[in-house]
Structures are given as C-alpha cells and as structure tokens.
C-alpha cells in the first residue's frame, strides 16, 4: 500500500515537475490557493478544530504566506503529511510549502534538495513518561521500551543518546502522533519521545496530564523550520520574508490589532518599509506593497501566533524560552527590512 502511494507520487513527480519548475509563486497565484503540508494532527501546531478548520502554530505560518501572496489567509489547502510522506509530497510539487515542525538538518537541506527558510520554533527532543514509573532522568531509562515516530531526526537522536550513555532500549516505531499517543497510553511503551513541544502538546490532550512528566533532559537541537523546494529562489524568498515579517512585526510592536492604524504611516521608517508605505519591498518580492500587512492581519505577529496556539495561557502551556525575541534574550532575530 505504502509502495503504491510512493510510486504514484513518483510518477506524479515525473509529470508535475515540469510544471512546478515554472515558478511556484506564479503557480500559487494562478491557482488562487496555497497547498501547504502540515502534520496529520498535533494540537497547537496543526490540527483541525471541532468545526474542521485547521488551527495551530504551523497552520498560521501557512495562512500568513497565503495572505501575503493571495491577500486571503483562508486560501490554503491543508495537506496532512506523515513523517514519511512529507518530503515526497514537497519534492513532487503536491505541496508548495511544508510547515510541519520539521527539523532543519544538513542532509535535508543539501542532500534532499530542500530550502529551509528560517526557524519558526527552536525545539529539542525530550521524553514523556508516566509519573508512576518514578523515573526522574532519561538516563534511568535503561531497558525501557520507547515509542518513536519513524522517519524523523528524533529516531536517530534516540539511538545516539542511548549509545553514548551506554544503556539499552527497545524502539516501538509508530507512524503518527495519534498512534504514538495511543500506544503510550495503553502502556505498550514506557516512554514516548519526540520534540519537547510535541510532547507538551500531546500531554495537553491526555485525560489526566498531571500523571505524566516530561523528563528534564533535552537530548538534541531541533530547529523547526518551514521549507520549500530547492532551486526556486523567488518562492523561497517570499516564504522566508513572510516569516521574517511576522518576527519583525513582534519586535516592532506591530500587532493584528494596530496594523491597520500603523499602515497609514508612522514615524518609524522600518515599520513603514515593512508595511509598504515607504519603499518598494513588496514589488521586489513580486507581491503587493501591503503584503506584510496582510500577513500580519491574517493571524497576528509571531508573538500573537505563539500565545494563541501554544503559549502559557493555552493547555499546551509552552514558555517562550529560546523562542523569545533577541531583545528579550531569545534567539529570534529577523534581518532588517531595507
């Protein structure tokens, strides 16, 4: 079954690649819809809500790009992808953009021929265990059974972590987060490992989240980044600078509430350039002058998107931590808009 899907994707790739190379930006404009790859369901990052509408941190990146390009944040076709299918979907042209908490690594960037446009969440891999196990450190997991999503960097980190600490484990490979959650809750594995943000999100959906702890060890660097196909630089620029616009907007205190007001013109030339009242940044990207304004209106600036989907007031309850602005001691640092 898996094989036939892949072969189908390959043959589609054969037919579609010729079209896709014409320029993704033009394709998206002509189609009037952005095809955006997201997870099959990770609450807070990308999951359909009770009305079937996609909501989440990654989803808002898709919506911002759609708003910047098409002027409409709802002109997005969300394509759920698993850890296994995501790269094929992007390479084949089935999706224009993959925003699916994907770790930026050398080999994916260079060998798989993708273009990571910038980090939207600095993460690290952690372990989730039931409190009743009495485990307080990942190094005590010798001999444990660990659920792990296949086709992810976490799979390799896990192997490295246990090898370097000279302890053993038994992997239980699973396909999707939902499946992992089910296996973990059924006790088929002692621990569940994935990015710490994903663990927090998964735990938030449990019946009794307080019965489970995330161990203190963060065993890897997981810079999660949206990515596009390598070689289409115009499209890569559009996505990269849309993400940067969201980050810069937070730094400049431009929010979805005051963006309309600020777009009338301000004292700050950088805000003016960002919102298109000064300079021709939008035109250089091949977009309207108010592209960033639309992107910010769609879901808010980076800080708003974070607070709304995964921030401390949500059930997921993630602190900004590394994902604070550089002015607040975090790692978010958008290059200047000029």
């Amino acid at each position, binding site marked *: *079954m*898996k*094989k036939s899907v*892949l*072969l189908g994707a*390959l*043959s589609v*790739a*054969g*037919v579609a*690649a*010729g079209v896709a*190379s014409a320029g993704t930006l033009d394709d998206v404009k002509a189609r009037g819809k952005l095809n955006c790859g997201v997870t099959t369901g990770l609450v807070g990052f990308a999951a359909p809500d009770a009305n079937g509408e996609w909501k989440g941190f990654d989803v808002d990146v898709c919506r911002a790009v759609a708003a910047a390009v098409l002027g409409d944040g709802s002109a997005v076709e969300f394509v759920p992808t698993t*850890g*296994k299918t995501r*790269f*094929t979907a992007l*390479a084949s042209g089935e999706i224009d953009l993959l925003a699916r908490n994907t770790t930026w690594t050398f*080999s*994916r960037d260079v*060998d*798989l*021929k993708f273009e990571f446009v910038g980090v939207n969440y600095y993460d690290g891999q952690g372990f989730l265990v039931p409190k*009743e*196990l009495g485990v307080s450190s990942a190094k005590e*997991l*010798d*001999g*444990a*059974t660990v659920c792990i999503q*296949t*086709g*992810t960097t976490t*799979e*390799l980190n*896990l*192997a*490295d972590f*246990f*090898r370097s600490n000279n302890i053993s*484990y*038994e*992997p*239980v*490979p*699973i*396909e999707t987060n939902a499946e992992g959650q089910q*296996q973990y809750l*059924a*006790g*088929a*594995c*002692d621990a569940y490992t994935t990015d710490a943000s994903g663990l927090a999100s998964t735990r938030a959906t449990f019946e009794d989240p307080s019965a489970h702890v995330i161990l203190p060890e963060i065993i890897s660097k997981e810079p999660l980044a949206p990515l596009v196909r*390598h*070689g289409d630089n115009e499209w890569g620029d559009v996505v990269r600078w849309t993400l940067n616009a969201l980050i810069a907007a937070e730094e400049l205190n431009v929010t979805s509430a005051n963006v309309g007001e600020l777009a009338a013109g301000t004292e700050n030339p950088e805000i003016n350039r960002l919102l298109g009242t000064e300079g021709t940044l939008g035109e250089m990207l091949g977009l309207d002058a108010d592209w960033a304004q639309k992107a910010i209106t769609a879901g808010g600036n980076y800080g708003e998107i974070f607070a709304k989907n995964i921030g401390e007031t949500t059930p997921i309850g993630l602190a900004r931590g590394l994902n604070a602005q550089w002015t607040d001691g975090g790692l978010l640092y958008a290059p200047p808009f000029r």
Partner: protein
Amino acid sequence: MTTISDPPTEQFRLSMLLNDTRYRSATFQAIAVILLVASIAYLGSNLAKNLREAGLDISFGFLSTPAGYDINQTLIPYNNQDTNLRAALVGILNTLLVSFLACATATILGVFAGVLRLSQNWLVRKLMSFYVEIFRNIPVLIWILIIYGIMTVSMPGPRDFRGENASASMLLDAVAVTNRGVYIPAPVWGPGSMVVVAVFVLSVIGVFAYRRYATKLLYDTGRLLPTTWPSIAIFFVPTLLAFFVMGSPIGLDYPALKGFNFQGGIKIGAPLIALWFALSVYTGAFIAENVRAGIQAVSKGQTEAAAALGLRPGRIMNLVVLPQALRVIIPPLISQYLNITKNSSLAILVGYADITATLGGITMNQTGRAIECVVLLMLFYLVISLCISLVMNVYNSTTRLKER
C-alpha cells in the same frame, strides 16, 4: 472433370494490413507493442530528465553508510552503527520469518476449515462457513489492527506483574503474556546438548523410515503393522533417554521482570503475533475455500468406491480424496502463499520491522533515496515471490496426475 489449379497468387498490398483478417491481428499487436514501448520510454526519459533538473542522481552508496537507527526485532546481531544494507538484511529476515510462519499456520488452518466445511455435522459446517465468510470479507489491514489493538489494550503491561498483589501473573511461572509480546522460556544449550539434538534428528528420520517400511510391507505381503504407537515411541523415547543419560544438558532460561521489561527467555513481540495471526486467519479462510473446491472436484464415485472396499471415512479422506484433491488445491495455494508474503509488507502499521519498514521506511526517509529504495524493494519482493512460485511449482508437478 475438375481441374485443380493453384489460386492466383495475391499481391501483398498495404491495405491488407487492415482489411485482411490474416494480417489484421498482427497489425494491432504491433501497434500495441509500439505504444507500450513508447510510453515506457517516455516515462523513463521524463524521470531521468526531472532527476537531472532537480540535481538528483541514482546512487546506491547509501547502503554502506551507518544506518543510525535501532530495530526492535533482529534475527541477526545488529546495532545502530551497522550499515543500511545490514538493516535491510534484518528486515528481509523478519519478512521471511513472518511469511514462513503465516504460510504454515494458514495452511493448517485452511485445510482443517476446508475439510470441516464439508462435514456432515450441521454445527461444525456452519461454524466453518462463518469463519470463512467473516475473515475473507474484511480487509487484512483491519484484522491486523484489530488483533494488535486487542493485544496492546487488553493484555496486562509489564508493570502489572510487579509487587505483592500484582494484577497479572505468569502462566506456570514460565510464560508471560504482556501487551508488548509473549515471553517464553528459552533453551540453554549446555555441554553434551548436541548429542541430544542429534538423537532427536535421528529419531525423526527413524519415524519416517519405520512408516515407509510399514507401507512397503503392507504392499508386498498385505501385513498391516501398527504405525501410531510405534511412531510416537520412536519419536520420544530415544530423545528422552539421551537427555537423561547426558545429565539433562538442556536447561531453560525463564523470563523474569527486571527493570522496565521482562528479561531473559524468548520474546515474541506483539507486532509479530498480530501480523502472524492476522495473515494466518485471513489467508486461511481463502485456503479453506481452495481445499473445499479441491475436495468437491474429486468425483463422488471415488468416495463411494473406497467405501465399498471397506475403508473408513478418515482413510477415504487421507488415502483417496486428498491426494487427488491436491492437484486442484496447489495452484491456487501458490497464489495464497505469494499473497501472504506481499501482505506482510503491511507490517509497519504495527511497528514490525520488515523490509518495507526498514529499507522502504526508515532508511528511505533518513537518506532520501526514494527511487533506489523502492527499486530494491520491488526487486526483493519479485525475487522472493518467484522463488516461492518455483518451489511450489516443483511440488505441484510431483502431485500432478501421472498419466501412464
């Protein structure tokens, strides 16, 4: 008077390719072949062109780089620093293991169910048709999920075995059934155990030799030797004697709860059980129908003639009906074996590390070599299926009706 003269030799004209029935079929076949070759060539060149444009090349170098991931069931020694090729080999062995187990179980199940479907007993007959209809009309994928779900949800976890008043306990203190798999005692081969094994192998050969001798004696002299009890005796007595004479060299390593899991013994993982069981019962239902068809294809006169000779029903089935039915049963049975092997690629669904999960799953994802991995996968399944066909076809030719 009639004169016989050659018909006038007709000149070949181009229009005859379409109008003349002698040439028309050849014309259409030629057109079909040309279209087929052209479309394959188009797809191939398209693939090559797109790969070139994307800057990708076809290379199998990734097979010799370290795999970097761990596998939960390995029949050969493996760790995450071994190569992708070795990981693929682990997957191949796991595929072969589950295919072999499922083929054997499905055959036994299928033959029983098929024979019993023709039973005179109303209840047995109806029960068997219930089994066949339920299992073959629900996709095997669903069965795998159902059985795995039952295993993981309803079986106790290793934690339940802990403590004074544990909610779960081991069967006979030797077998632990958990939601991660079944742990059974493993044999420990002490010094001298090889003698016991050798005696065991010899006694198995002895059983066959004795039965052969009994048959020969029956055919030559008409004397009927008892076979059941001597067979059982030859099978057990020498081995047991050797076991005690050598001073019980084969011990048992019992599984025991240590840390998070049971340690020691042999673990039969829940994924393997789910896959094995689901493939067996699903394909067993199809085989049951093949067996029923085969038996019903043997003319009723054969049964009646055998009964007239005074043979008992069991003997009629074993000596008269089944040998003839096999001719009809085996060709579709080959297809069922091939189906089991190919359906075992659903293993990743329950986290069983078969070749599709290792080479076609994790390796493909981590290296991004989709085309290479899929080509290798197709080659593997093709080769293994052809091998099964070959072996079964040889067997088929031995059971074929021998025309003299």
